[in-house]
């Protein structure tokens, strides 16, 4: 097991190298970071004199061949320097990411809790009452929840709870009250898919022979469901949950925007808009690493849930 985990961790390195190279090259093909200096849509005029653009490009080291720029960049990473931001002049890209991470992690954690609280009991309920009204209710929820755009839901929640009832703050961060609406919005949209997976998994397992045997043995329904069926039904649920985490930590751009929640998502979208290469690269590397680690985590959790799965 330890050897397996170590091997998997080693595989992360070539993956990340590939990703940095890809992002680095694509970014440089797709546009010009001098745009960051121009101030975006708010710029007084959408251009600078030609010789000034050349001077800025030289200052940023963009006049050198891409491969030279890449090698310098990778060399700096090994020294712990992920480059400096253009938009946040002078600030290190890694520092910016770390600064935002707690906000995003808080929102992601709260959204996951909401999602699990809805999907786990919801899915079980639907499976046990298959084709009866609780099942229909849960199915209706999971279809609507999946189809409903989260930006729409977010705005509606604000209008209802903040503008009409004045129970909760409209936007911002800092207190528990600020967390409720964004967590609810984000959690509900993830929960829809999770509920369906939970229901599907359990329905399938409940029709298997060993469950029938357990029932025939005269075990209490609670024992059959929770002790025998659930463990096998929950595998795909856990997979999806594991895969959702890196996405959540990468920041939910739409939710963060609607609720003015200063997390990684807002940082990333800003950086994209301003061609802030160092920041874009740092966020992408971080998110990719999370995906790889998330997958690994899921694999390890499998062995805990299902003893038949072993890694060598």
């Amino acid at each position: 097991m330890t050897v397996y985990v170590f091997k998997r961790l080693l595989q992360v390195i070539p993956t990340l190298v590939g990703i940095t190279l890809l992002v680095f090259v694509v970014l440089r093909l797709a546009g010009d970071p001098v745009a960051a200096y121009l101030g975006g849509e708010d710029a007084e005029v959408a251009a600078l004199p030609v010789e000034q653009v050349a001077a800025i490009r030289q200052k940023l080291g963009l006049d050198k061949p891409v491969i030279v720029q890449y090698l310098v960049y990778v060399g700096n990473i090994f020294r712990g320097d992920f480059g400096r931001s253009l938009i946040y002049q002078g600030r290190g890209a890694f520092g910016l990411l770390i600064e935002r991470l707690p906000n995003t992690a808080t929102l992601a954690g709260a959204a996951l809790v909401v999602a699990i609280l809805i999907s786990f009991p919801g899915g079980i309920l639907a499976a046990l009452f298959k084709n009866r009204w609780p099942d229909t209710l849960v199915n209706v929820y999971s279809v609507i929840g999946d189809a409903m755009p989260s930006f729409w839901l977010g705005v509606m929640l604000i209008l209802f709870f903040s503008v009409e009832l004045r129970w909760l703050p409209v936007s911002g961060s800092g207190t528990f009250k600020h967390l409720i609406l964004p967590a609810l919005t984000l959690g509900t949209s993830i929960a829809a898919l999770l509920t369906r997976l939970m229901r599907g998994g359990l329905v399938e397992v409940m029709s298997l022979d060993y469950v029938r045997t357990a029932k025939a043995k005269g075990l209490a329904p609670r024992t059959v469901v929770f002790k025998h069926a659930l463990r096998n039904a929950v595998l795909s649920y856990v997979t999806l949950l594991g895969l959702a985490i890196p996405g959540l930590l990468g920041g939910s751009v739409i939710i963060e925007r609607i609720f003015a929640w200063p997390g990684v998502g807002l940082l990333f979208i800003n950086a994209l808009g301003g061609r802030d290469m160092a920041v874009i690269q740092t966020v992408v590397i971080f998110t990719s690493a999370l995906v790889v680690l998330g997958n690994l985590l899921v694999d390890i959790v499998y062995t805990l849930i299902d003893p038949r799965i072993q890694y060598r």
Partner: protein
Amino acid sequence: MRPARSNWFKEECMKKLITTVALVAALLLGSATAASQVTVAVGQLPGHFDPQNNNASTVSGIIINIFEYMVMKDEQGQFIPALATSWESVDPLTWRFTLREGVKWHDGVPFTAADVKFTFERVAKDATLVRHAYYKHIESVEIINDHEVLFHTSTPDPIFLSNLSRNGASVLPRHHWEAMGADVAAQKPIGTGPYVFSELRTDDRLILTANDDYWGGRPAYDTAVFRRITEGSTAVSELLTGGVDLVASVSRAEITRFDGAAAAKVVPVIGNRINHLTFNTREGQITADQRIRAAVDYAVDDELLLEVLQDGAGAPVQARVSPGTFGSPLEYYDSYLYDVEVAKNLLAEAGYGPSKPAAITLMGSNGYADTADLVGAMLEEAGFVVEIKLFEPSVWSAKYSSTGDFTNVAFGAASDSSFDYGNSLIDNTCPNGVYYVQTGWCNEGYDALVNQANTEFDSEKRVALLRDATEILVAERPQYYMYASATFVGVSNAMEFRPRADSLIILATARPAAH
């Protein structure tokens, strides 16, 4: 004696009670008025505080509360003293400024001529600073004494004062920048303004506190907070529920939410941001033909664009003119050309017709989707065959801004924070004007007039030269100016504040509304 003692005891008790009640009351009342705060919702926060490296008008509108210019403009566009108390043009190449005495930087160090010299020589010499272009002709700043300086320029500059009261002209503290270096100083700003930098939470909020020692008097609010709220509906929800006091720019879709609202109102402000079409006039483009450019102008109904896109708030224009911009020939303001028949005739004259349709491409960032649909439909009405290509903003900005890579027509907008028309006209000169990269348009007569105007100190002569240059620009149309757009500012009824045409959010002028 006993009754007396009892009285004394009663009196003492009474006194204590009164004192306690008074204290509690003072505390309660005090807490209601003591820590006053004004909160502003903005679409963008400064990422750094290097005013000379900022091109965004939103950002300059915010940092005016921390840093100050040498001269300011009042709402009528007249120059008023700020860090400089008086000024004169000694000769065409020299300006003399007397600086305000008794001004202190936020760290207590006195403001002197050395700061002015440092500030303007930095931006004049460093070509990598985005505001360099407006100050590169400053050869040196000569210190006469602590409160008097001479600016020596390489070319005569009648717009000099305007350039000293615009985005980029904020005076910087020499001691701070030299001790810290630009990168650190730009993250820990020290200014002379009415508010002191306290904290920047990137992409979240900028917190400022009142400057007790401000030369213009302490501002009314103890704390000023700028919150970044990019979602238009969220910003308005905050304003209507008292979460913010000011929304710098209310999106058009949200305006109806102010109908009958008791908490806030929306105020339209027309500045000098002009929406335009930029033509690629290089060979091989259909828009190389002046008649085609004229046909586009005649085919598009500016008034209708304003009505649909701006709820009618704004004015159609034929040049980058506005009432608050010095030197604007206002015959081109609130005026436009629209005649589909003329457009059709121009197309026929240029050799296009049913057998040879005039195919034209419109490009821009996807923020111009509505504009593109409308303009495209009107052009088709006049006989053009239109193709619309819109891009994600950063892709478009990279494509268009620095390389001028586009086909036929591009959507855009421009403003000028100096509010001097001569500065707007420079943008179309060849080859140094910023729009030359895109238009490829050169006209020697125009360049000569603009250059002459911008070295002419006699206001009347200058205005006449600018008018002549505009005539050429309007006739040849490297750009077609559509309309001056209004910004809608949301203001809480709990606050007195007049939004400015130059979009500077000067919070020192804001105060709680009298009830």
